């Protein structure tokens, strides 16, 4: 485990703090792009691993948190 926090939550906070007025679905797409770019080293090997978010939405309108 990464002692500085998870890739998803840390990237989410970074992206939303940078653009709190943006459309949340677009911001999550950006979060996913950044998370997918990351290479993760497993705890018990030097092999690089990838992660990808899954976003499920049944929103009916744009959602902007600020």
């Amino acid at each position, binding site marked *: *485990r*990464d002692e500085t926090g998870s890739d998803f939550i840390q990237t989410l906070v970074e992206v939303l703090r940078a653009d709190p007025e943006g459309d949340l679905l677009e911001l999550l797409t950006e979060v996913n792009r950044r998370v997918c770019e990351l290479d993760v080293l497993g705890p018990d090997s030097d092999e690089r691993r990838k*992660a*990808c978010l*899954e976003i*499920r*939405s049944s929103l009916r309108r744009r959602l902007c948190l*600020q």
Partner: protein
Amino acid sequence: EPWGLEPEPSPSAQYDLSGARVALLLAVIRGRSGAQHDVEALRGLCQALGFETTLTTDPTAQAFQEELAQFREWLDAHRGPVSCALVALMAHGGPQGQLLGADGQEVQPEALVRELSCCRALRGRPKIFLLQACRGGHRDAGLGPTALSWFWRWLRAPPATPSHADVLQVYADAQGSSSRGPTAGSSDQADILMVYAAAEGCVAY
């Protein structure tokens, strides 16, 4: 509105967030190094965005369910309109996508989502779920030659479980049929945004 219905939202319409915003953060910290950083970062973000935030650390599996039920009851008794709810669920995950409470017992995240689907105060309001947990043990090595061959086999195989597109179609069908009938309001399945830290069956880092 002849049937006392909600107006159909136009494609460009935004959710009205002028009412209260509430967040519930449920995080298993024990045995998850770095988890405290996630809690602090998320709590700071929620406060910056004006969410009234409740945090519970190290909930058992039963407490996950109870916290959601209490949250729903609190929202239904809330004075004044609630415009948005955010729920973050952070824990180790089981092989079938279960969340593991601090006691090692399992709870299905979908059961937690259903708890808020029937919340009257949140009807027609956006409900955001953030799930930071493993959803299985598959480790994605990226699209190298081996992974590519696995990917093409997976692509050709008939889906064993509903795909993302299938789920979206179900949502679309449900909304389409509900908007045609005289009892239409918003579907229990509508206005939900779920964000998983990993794809189905995969490890979350």
